[in-house]
């Protein structure tokens, strides 16, 4: 059985995994970080988005062995201690979530969106960028608001910028 060493949320783990193990399975089942969710089996829904070496990845499309040596951030690693990341705070403030199941992936995608597209995001950009994340509850209206506000707050030099990365 292959051995994989990954840094997840700033903590190094060395684990034995079956070769077919997906990164999301490693995260959820071996490391018991269950904030990263599985919502489909075709890499469409985005509930499993994490950051691998600073870039958003659908963790259901990556083998755990491919993450050997990588730095992974999951939703659990986004806040700086008890201080929420501005994007987390924005989702709460703007009611960007209802059942919460798609939320971790949404937030991880949104943070990645800001790092790629900057902090001044118009509605159209946000909607297009969220193509890979499905939400069934909110109709996206408040998610779009939350992402725009979270992006601005990230620029504002929040103290809680991606602590683990």
């Amino acid at each position, binding site marked *: 059985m292959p051995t994989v060493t990954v840094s997840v949320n700033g903590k190094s783990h060395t684990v034995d995994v079956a070769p077919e193990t997906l990164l999301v399975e490693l995260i959820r089942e071996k490391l018991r970080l269950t904030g990263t969710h599985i919502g489909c089996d075709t890499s469409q*829904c985005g509930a499993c988005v994490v950051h691998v070496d600073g870039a958003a990845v659908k963790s259901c499309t990556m083998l755990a062995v491919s993450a050997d040596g990588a730095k992974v951030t999951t939703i659990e690693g986004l806040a700086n201690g008890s201080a929420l990341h501005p994007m987390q705070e924005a989702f*709460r403030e703007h009611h960007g979530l209802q059942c919460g*199941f798609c939320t*971790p992936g949404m937030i991880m995608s949104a943070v990645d969106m800001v790092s790629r597209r900057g902090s001044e995001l118009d509605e159209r950009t946000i909607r297009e960028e969220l193509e890979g994340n499905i939400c*069934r509850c909110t*109709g996206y209206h408040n998610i779009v608001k939350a992402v725009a506000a979270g992006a601005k707050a990230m620029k504002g030099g929040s103290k809680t910028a991606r602590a683990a990365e």
Partner: protein
Amino acid sequence: MSATGIGAAVRRKEDHRFITGTGNYTSDITRPGEVRAYFVRSPHAHATIKKVDVKAAEKMPGVVAVLTGADLAGDKIGGLICGWAIFSKDGSPMKAGAHPAIAADKVRCVGDAVAVVLAETLAQARDAAEKVKVDYGTLPSVVDPAKAQAKGAPQVHDVAPNNTIYEWHLGDKAATDAAFASAKHVTKLDIVNNRLVPNAMEPRAAIAEYDQGNDSLTLWNTSQNPHVARLVISAFIGMAPEHKLRVIAPDVGGGFGSKIFIYPEEVVALWASRRVKRPVKWVSDRSEAFLTDAHGRDHVTHAEMAFDASGKITGLRAKTIANLGAYMSTFSSSVPTYLYATLLSGQYAIPSIYCEVDAVYTNTAPVDAYRGAGRPEATFVVERLVEVGAREQGIDPAELRRRNFVKSFPHQTPVIMAYDAGDYNASLTKAMEMADYKNFGKRKADSEKKGKLRGIGFSTYIEACGIAPSQAVGSLGAGVGLWESAEVRVNPTGSVEILTGSHSHGQGHETTFAQLVSERLGVPIETVSVVHGDTDKVQFGMGTYGSRSGAVGMSAIVKALDKVEAKAKKVAGYMMEASADDIEFKNGSFTVKGTDKKVGWGDVTLNAYIAHKFTGGQLEPGLKEGAFYDPTNFTFPAGCHIAEVEIDPDTGKTEIANWVAVDDFGVIINPMIVEGQVHGGIAQGIGQALLEGASYNSDGQLVTGSFMDYTMPRADDLPNFKVGTTVTKCPSNPLGIKGCGEAGAIAAPAALINAITNAVGHEKVPMPASPSAVWKAAQGGMKRAAE
């Protein structure tokens, strides 16, 4: 209004765990020693099972057991049931076929379970499942509800000849036919209400654990109503006595109706856990969800509306064939009957209505309640007829609606419902202002200059929510009462726990219910917690669906709070040596009328438990009260949605240019949460009208079986929504709440199809109105315009 009381947009208490990844969904739970379950499912829509050979699978690595339908039958585990009895016109009861949790003799749809493999890991269970050999005798299948009753059609269940479950009707046929005979104008429509897959983002899951020492079972599952699940699994399926079965629905990731029902997999998990004496975990993957979650809608309808010379509606008649799929799911029978035909009066005073509904079996996934459940189907029929009727008679659609609105209350419709309060003109007027209706012509002209087609469509919808009172639903065939329970536990330090039979799967009960308590008791919202979803904690409850948690669930809390306040006044009376009748309670303080004597909430709650001042022994210590609330009527949320679209006639692409929703939900506890519910409902309604449609081929294979084939609304498919409200209080419950959860999904499809047909000048636009369908209609409309 306080910052955390009724009417305040309080940020949600539950959000912290969801945004930090610390929620607790069923699939997040692991139990020591658990095995993973994987189902072997039929690849055929219709086949006899000649033989199931599990020998090779049993020898695979990690396999603990492979169980079949024969094993299930051998252990005398009962089949799944439909809990709402419907009777045909001739008085005969509905013809429900057997629904074993694992098929033993015959499979009736693709995805029907034929065996379950239990193994140490999911991968091992999957590998072993491939070794289960099933010898099928394939049979021809029927998938189209309009063809299910045809002579010679394949028979899904022997007990239901011609695949007909019931032939039901409602209303006065003779009076309605007379209205049509004397009509000045009759509008006729053929409508297909498309089949939808609910697709809550959290797939269903179940973990069952057998406790040998106590001979009891615990089930963690993705349920909207864990108590009903326990009742059905105990009383009808015979798994275990009710007191030996605990059902826990932890955080649930969306439901939209699909998690109301009792499903085969949770029954099998419980049974298997007792057999192998280890916890059994099953988590649906998305492909399984598409095949096995109960779908929604799937009606084929012919409907007609009669008008007199002044544009007054004099009659409505409809004939609907409702597809219930291969098995009757838990509440499937009620959806195309009492949740559908009873709403065919819409917001209008219609003197005569007659509706016939045939429910049929087909070789497709079961169909049951999905957000709106029957009411979107009714609204679509009524609002399409009214809009088309207005166009045919050359009357402005808003004006035609106004002429026919119910204006005085209470209003008894010809189809059971008695509307209690509303102001339909107010929501229409406000929506027209918000949509800038008067300048639509200018915008249309601007679109035409760009070579685009612009259209506007109304939907003035009504729904019946709460799904109660119990006596009423009982008289209509419901196997359960539809009240709600609450218990208010006040701790010695003054903090409060609310135990409720409602269950939140995204609706934010932990916040809104706490707002009610904060307002009522004058306590900080942080000191209130809500407990739900565990049959060992909450004694009984009916769960969350039918937009009922505010109107029914919170009313039960009000009743319990009334009792708490009465008792707390007695405690305060002892403390201040005054009669309880002289105690006033306001903003968290108890005072004696006409004096300056005053004690605070925390003093009273502590004294309730130390009981040092209860002289005479007439007052019991403690501060905990429970209540059951059974409404006296349904609630009737209503409103007006206006959709405006711009269509490219060359590509058929529809762009939603504007969406206005003005809803009357009665009193609103948290406007932020209510707006969120409206947004989500509209998105699902737009999804139905524009994007979504479950499609089976003639062999019964689900062609749209994944997110790659079934078009879920994505962020770039939808606009921002303009949401407003008007308020008439619901007179039948203490808070004046009507409910908001389903409105968007009920209103939206008709508004959007009305807008698209208005734009293209052609009424034959199917749902989903895909670009190719809209392009064809646009070509037809332009051809018609040229003639």
